[in-house]
């Protein structure tokens, strides 16, 4: 389709505004992390890397990042295993109450985080007695499972069952069929679901507030607690800037992965 020059100009402008709206604040965060002025006044008064070196040795930050990575990794792994098994069962087998169970699996993501948080907090404090890092992981897994389940179930539905039938017809048993046909076709859905689950867990704050034990700060909670302390604000800024830069990596990788797939 050919567009007229004014139309093109208009669309480019709109796109420019849209992108600017998203990215200017992010760039500002990065710039401010090098700003000598602690109150982030504009324009920056000078260039310094001292916030970065301070943040790098800050115990609270390092602990919170480590904890968040650990929680997100374990929650994602749990979600990948349970979510894809559930999706396989629901997509491939007929059993009593299948639709109801499918709905029950998806429901947690629709529940307000605060409800999940309170409910889990009740159960954990009443039956386990205390909140630990594992209660955070369980809390996160409840909604991480949903995104994996949804991704994998959708892929199963689109795939149909004839490919697996064809594989078995050609002499492959169930294990070989899964290894050579089902898994390769699910792989992208697993990666997508896994990345999404990891991201959801990494910046989750509401459920975490209710399920984290004393002193078990994840990164979002640490940021929230330190954002309004004047002497900590520049460090929070550095953490935010670092996250912006780090999150480019998985996005870039997943884009590359999917592009290679379609080129072949």
């Amino acid at each position, binding site marked *: 389709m050919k567009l007229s020059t004014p139309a093109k100009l208009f669309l480019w402008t709109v796109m420019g505004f849209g992108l600017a709206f998203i990215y200017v604040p992010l760039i500002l965060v990065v710039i401010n992390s090098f700003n000598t002025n602690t109150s982030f006044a504009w324009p920056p008064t000078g260039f310094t890397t001292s916030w970065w070196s301070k943040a790098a040795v800050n115990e609270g930050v390092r602990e919170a990042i480590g904890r968040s990575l650990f929680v997100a990794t374990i929650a994602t792994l749990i979600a990948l295993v349970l979510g894809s098994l559930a999706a396989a069962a629901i997509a491939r087998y007929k059993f009593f109450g299948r639709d109801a169970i499918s709905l029950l699996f998806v429901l947690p993501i629709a529940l307000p985080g605060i409800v999940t948080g309170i409910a889990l907090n009740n159960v954990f404090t009443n039956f386990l007695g205390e909140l630990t890092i594992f209660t955070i992981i369980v809390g996160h897994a409840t909604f991480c499972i949903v995104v994996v389940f949804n991704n994998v179930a959708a892929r199963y539905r689109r795939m*149909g069952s004839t490919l697996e039938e*064809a*594989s078995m*017809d*050609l002499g*492959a048993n169930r294990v070989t069929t899964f290894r*050579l046909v089902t898994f390769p*076709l699910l792989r992208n859905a697993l990666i997508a679901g896994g990345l999404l689950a990891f991201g959801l867990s990494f910046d989750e704050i509401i459920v975490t507030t209710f399920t984290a034990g004393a002193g078990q700060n994840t990164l979002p909670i640490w940021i929230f607690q330190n954002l309004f302390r004047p002497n900590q604000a520049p460090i929070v800024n550095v953490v935010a800037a670092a996250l912006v830069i780090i999150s480019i990596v998985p996005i870039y990788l997943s884009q590359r992965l999917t592009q290679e797939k379609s080129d072949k």
Partner: protein
Amino acid sequence: MAIIEIQNLAKSFGSVKAVDGVDLDIQAGEFLTLLGPSGSGKTTVLRMIAGFETPDSGSIKLNGTDITYLPPYERDVNTVFQDYALFPHMDVLSNIEYGLKVKKFEKAERREKALKALEQVRLAGYENRKPNQLSGGQRQRVALARALVNRPSVLLLDEPLGALDLKLRQQMQIELKELQREVGITFIFVTHDQEEALTMSDRIAVFDKGKIQQLDKPAAIYESPKNEFVAGFVGISNLISGAAAQKLIGKAGTFTVRPEKIRLGMTGSDVRNAEGLIKEVEYLGPSTRFLVQLDAGVELMALRQNSSESAFEVEAMRNTRTTLSWEIASEYQLV
């Protein structure tokens, strides 16, 4: 010798009897077609032979061995699926090699066999394409090669030509038949297309309501259908029954006569003659179909070659009176 012996096979889905007591012996090397409308049980029979469905009762033997409850991967049969079911993440060559690979053939040997199979379906040079880079007809051929490369005792084909356009379908019908003669493998072919069945098969099993209605050579199925269903499903049935049968044929019963056996505007002795009004004229190009309301109280379809008439001339015959006639030998009494 029968390569497949099916005895008293039955399968229900919920309260629906999909297959209801099927007995069928399939001879080695024959091209057998399971023909019927959708829901007649033909595909379910095929899927039970392949091992994708377990029958409720009855047995299936392959080369004398009971395979009724064997999983698909332990049966010496291969399937060409309706939607081809090519593995989208593998190229053409890997698709064809798949069966040999899981059966642990040496790499060199399976490559050689796969390339040969590819040549057999006239797709040499396409080995590195992905399935989504192929046309429907080409996918069809890859699916065929993928199944045939395993040299199964029996090849099962589940409406494999259904997704192709008419021209390609007719071409593939001929190719399939040639391929079957060449490799000498038993083909069991499922279709709802009666023309396809008549063109390709050595024998046809006509299915309806989970039962085989008639099992015979194509000519016999067409010329002497056993019952009303077969007459109606294979070709256009002109049914004459009740009072009309008494008047025209002189006895009670249900009779059928094929449209192309009926002549227009000619009378004679030793033939049936019936007067009527031409209600509908359908110009088909090489021939014309006439729907005639006979005075005896029955509508018959007559098919006539357009050897000298123009479209205009046949159109002008609408709503005129005519005489239909046919040889007594070409009318069949149905049971």
